[in-house]
């Protein structure tokens, strides 16, 4: 019996496992870096719009509203963050940190958008604040997320701001308190209206957001 071959095969197999583990981790790290870089770009965009807004006031609403492309960038960031959550886990410290930064960017974009829309009549976006939990206490949140993702894909100008209700972030807690959102999730705020709770399917959401009819869709119009 040549036991040496058994040991060598074991070492090689272990090395293959270690390599697979290393590559998978490196790619996850690259994903985190990718999200950080996108977040940096978005925060610069927000800062730029804020500065532009302060410089011009309401004098040039056309120029300001044309620069509002952040919604799609935030949406892309959300789907990237979702992949990172799946790979690294929802309790991973890097994921939680990225999520906090993402939520802050959302809040900043939301506030800026509201400021601009108050002064510029040609910029009246349709927006939804969506509060969810992925801690296992909201079985319907995944389904509500799918409804909103579908709406967001169908109506690219619909601005959906999704927030993890349980995220330990003072700014988010303040937003939750201001909008009087309790922990009966999923919770949805459309425009400036009252909070609605529970799963709302596609047709219910379309009724909740009558403004959708004014938005362009990605599907061709039927004449």
């Amino acid at each position, binding site marked *: 019996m040549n036991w040496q*071959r058994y040991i060598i095969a074991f070492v090689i197999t272990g090395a293959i496992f270690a390599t697979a583990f290393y590559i998978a981790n490196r790619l996850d790290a690259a994903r985190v870096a990718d999200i950080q870089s996108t977040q940096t770009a978005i925060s610069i965009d927000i800062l730029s719009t804020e500065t532009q807004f302060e410089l011009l006031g309401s004098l040039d609403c056309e120029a300001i509203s044309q620069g509002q492309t952040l919604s799609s960038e935030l949406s892309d960031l959300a789907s990237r963050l979702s992949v990172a959550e799946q*790979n690294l886990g929802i309790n991973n410290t890097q994921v939680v940190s990225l999520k906090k930064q993402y939520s802050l960017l959302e809040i900043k974009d939301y506030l800026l958008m509201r400021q601009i829309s108050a002064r510029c009549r040609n910029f009246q976006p349709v927006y939804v604040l969506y509060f969810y939990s992925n801690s296992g206490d909201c079985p319907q949140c995944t389904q509500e997320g799918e409804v909103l993702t579908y709406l967001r894909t169908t109506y690219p100008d619909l601005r959906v701001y999704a927030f993890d209700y349980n995220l330990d972030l003072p700014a988010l807690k303040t937003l939750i308190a201001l909008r009087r959102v309790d922990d009966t999730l999923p919770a949805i705020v459309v425009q400036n209206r009252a909070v609605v709770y529970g799963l709302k399917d596609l047709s219910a959401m379309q009724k909740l957001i009558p403004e959708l009819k004014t938005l362009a869709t990605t599907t061709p119009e039927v004449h």
Partner: protein
Amino acid sequence: MYIGTLILYACLFLTLYFEVFLLLSFLERRPGVKNARAPRHYPSVAMIVPCYNEERTVAGTIESLLALEYPAEKLSILVVNDGSSDTTGAIARGYAARDPRIVYIEKENGGKYTALNVGIAHTQADIVGCLDADSFVAPDALLEAVKVFEDPTVMAITPAMKVSKPHSMLEVMQAVEYTFGIFLKKMFDNLAAINVLPGPFSLYRREVFERIGPFRHAYNTEDMEIAFRMHRHGLKIANAHTAIVYTTVPCTIPSLLRQRTRWSRGFLENSRDYYYMYFNPRYGHFGVLVLPVALVAFFAGLYSAGFMLYKAVGYVATRVTDALATGIPPHLPAAHLDWYYLNTGMLTFLIITVLSMTLVAILLGSRIAATRLTLKSFFAYFAFFGLLAPLWLARALFGAVLATQRVWR
């Protein structure tokens, strides 16, 4: 990490370990290439052809034996009709009347092992070979096999088995599987751990039967049992990878399932009878590596298939439930071309590695026996084998546990 996923990782580790072990074995001792050297001597050879209702193929089998490049006076062919109810007997009798090398023996139906034993009792040849009546030997197969018997310690020989004229998806899938088998057999030969002496063209020194007795019923897997018994008695089995035999394979899924269920169940039941060989260094790599890995692979195959099925059913059920709850019309999920969205988890890399090493083993098998495989056959193997194998594994386990009646075909 869930316990289910952890077990899957353990299965992958074992599979990789086994593949690495075999590839190391290949690197240590590469199979030699075929050469034109004639055998140093020509022992007398008796080829036994057990037949039961083989009227479609028996003529081809006998013709292939008659075409063997071997001295006529040293070769005899014993066609044993195991109580066929079709025209097998008439066909074989016709050949026996025309060629003195052929002896026709008729007996009541008693199973393949009884036909082989009757054939063994009718010959005094130095080498006794078996050839299923649905298989065909290459003209130089016996010459190549006899050269391996020049090593006096070799007591039995297995050939390189190829699929005869594969056409359908199921047949080409098996052609790849048999090519993988050629690699496995050669590596098991390197390890002195060949686990089966298949019906198509296995050859034995006559003294094997004198020392360890004749074939046994062995749950309709007499070819496996005799290999176990030979290891038990320390008799060496070698692989003659240049001795090529072509065999007919099942061409329908039910017949394939029946055949493989018989093989798999035979393995389980013979393992039970020879349990003491497991992890026993006295039986070399056969006891320490081949038997335990084969048994674990049996259950790992079932577990992995069950795990994948559970995940797939869970996914479909969730999608259907979500679609009903959300009212979202059916649509394709968003396609992301960005690398970011690729599944690059550890499991993905390990599965790719296992499949790649399997592919390497198949290609080496193809090179060892000069087999040509098409893209279609690779597609059939990688797409369907993993779906079909769990079916016969489950049936075999079910049959072995409940001791249901065994079916030959």
